[in-house]
């Protein structure tokens, strides 16, 4: 079974399956029917950008609460992204290349966090890594405290976001012709050399796009973070938490942070499409 990353399947097919020109007259009808959803998706974003006073954007972003949140978000998501690649790549390779008992169960487990409500993830993390949790209690005896620290933020992001990378990477590994790797290994390349010089360069762009997707997901997490890591400015209050709190304290700061997140999400998605298009050519 070859698993394709779900956010890729749409555009990877559209290029080849484009309808012949003869059927084009119905374009007008389809366009009319597509309009309501497109308008619905666009409307909240447009309203938010309209309401956020863009000329005052920098003033609100210079607010200490906003600055701390941005810095914390960047730091934690960078560490999360690093861990996701380090720990996710072997999982993706394993899933794409080997058959083993309970493979399908593992495959399903990897997808689970993407459909779970993040609050469930947060609660689960508390039960496992909280001070009275399975691992949290022994770790505390060793003097390692996770709850209410930036470490908790990273763990929450890792849980929520890593499946996006693993899914993309597994799809990419599965799409490589195994003859290429066999040829290299017949020529005397070691397993590591095959992976490093043949496999990796072929999937580079897919891995990068999966990473960017999952980084973006980590950046946006709210539910798991607030439940597991709590809310403390500069320590665990990431941008989404600051937006939530800002909704009650200072709407302008919340709007300014929202604009940043929308812009970064948009850039990320454009980047992903560009990377994947580049790899296909």
């Amino acid at each position, binding site marked *: 079974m070859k698993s394709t990353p779900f956010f890729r399947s749409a555009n990877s097919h559209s290029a080849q399956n484009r309808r012949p020109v003869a059927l084009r007259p119905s374009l007008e009808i389809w366009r009319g029917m597509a309009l309501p959803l497109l308008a619905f998706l666009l409307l909240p974003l447009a309203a938010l950008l309209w309401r956020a006073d863009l000329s005052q954007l920098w003033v609100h972003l210079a607010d200490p609460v906003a600055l701390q949140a941005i810095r914390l978000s960047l730091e934690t998501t960078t560490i999360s992204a690093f861990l996701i690649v380090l720990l996710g790549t072997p999982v993706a390779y394993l899933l794409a290349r080997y058959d083993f008992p309970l493979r399908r169960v593992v495959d399903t487990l990897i997808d689970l966090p993407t459909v779970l409500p993040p609050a469930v993830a947060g609660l689960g993390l*508390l039960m496992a890594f*909280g*001070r009275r949790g399975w691992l949290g209690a022994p770790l505390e005896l060793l003097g390692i405290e996770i*709850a209410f620290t930036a470490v908790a933020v990273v763990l929450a992001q890792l849980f929520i976001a890593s499946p996006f990378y693993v899914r993309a990477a597994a799809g990419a590994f599965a799409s490589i012709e195994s003859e290429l790797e066999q040829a290299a290994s017949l020529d005397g390349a070691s397993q590591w050399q095959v992976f490093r010089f043949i496999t990796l360069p072929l999937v580079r762009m897919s891995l990068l796009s999966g990473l960017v997707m999952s980084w973006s997901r980590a950046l946006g997490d709210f539910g798991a973070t*607030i439940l597991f890591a*709590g809310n*403390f*400015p500069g320590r665990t209050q990431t941008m989404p938490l600051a937006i939530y709190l800002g*909704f009650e304290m200072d709407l302008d700061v919340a709007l300014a942070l929202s604009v940043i997140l929308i812009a970064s999400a948009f850039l990320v998605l454009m980047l992903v499409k560009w990377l994947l298009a580049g790899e296909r050519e």
Partner: protein
Amino acid sequence: MKYRSLSICLFCLALLCAGCLAPADGSSSKPPTQEVVVFAAASLTDVFAEIGTAFTATNPQAAVTFNFAGSQQLASQLAEGAPASLFASADQRQMDAAVAAGRVDPASVALFACSRLVVVASGDRVAALSDLATPGVKLVIGADAVPVGAYALAFLDAAAADPAYGEPFRAGVLANVVSYEQSVRAVLSKVRLGEADAGIVYATDAQAVADVAVIDIPTQLNQLAYYQVAPLRDAIAPEMTREFFSFLLSSEGKGLLSAAGFSTDCASATPE
């Protein structure tokens, strides 16, 4: 292949369960006609649920729906136009916000209950009030915007001005805060889970749970939370809303509030 048959079995089992759990329709003869939507402070969760049950028992044609959250969150929702019938806030500030947003007529606001602050603790690191300032203790309180958070900060200010505690006490306590939570119930949950050693909540929240130790805050430092209620200008089901409003202030409503640990005779005292 064997996983496929396993998953088919599980699927069938799930269908069976869903069948068992499906509500037996037709039992309710008359659908309730008027729905009162109550926006209430998180600390009122248990007592308002009881009051709602008692209210619908005497008014069978009424249905009561609750939206429990931090008062500040409810006030924000109201300011953004959320449809509702009644707003019960845990402090003056958030009721003022609803008034400022034009949703509440200031003349219709009524004080209906009071509660005071206590410290709840789990584990053995916090046994007395002074332990709150011991380095290494993990403390959670409400965020400044949340009424219980604002009251907690006011308590710390009062303690700082009191020679028995002083400024170092306040500084020590604030240094121990590890999270500013979004509602009093979130504070309580973090303490019950043992994630935090202690938290500051209302006495009424602490009364409802058995698994935390309760430490009293002396009266001269304590802060009274004044619960205020008002029907909205544009209330959903305005007549039934008035009924609910009077029920809350009636002797039956007060009885339920007192049973839950709220003080109702503060209604004569004026909030500062």
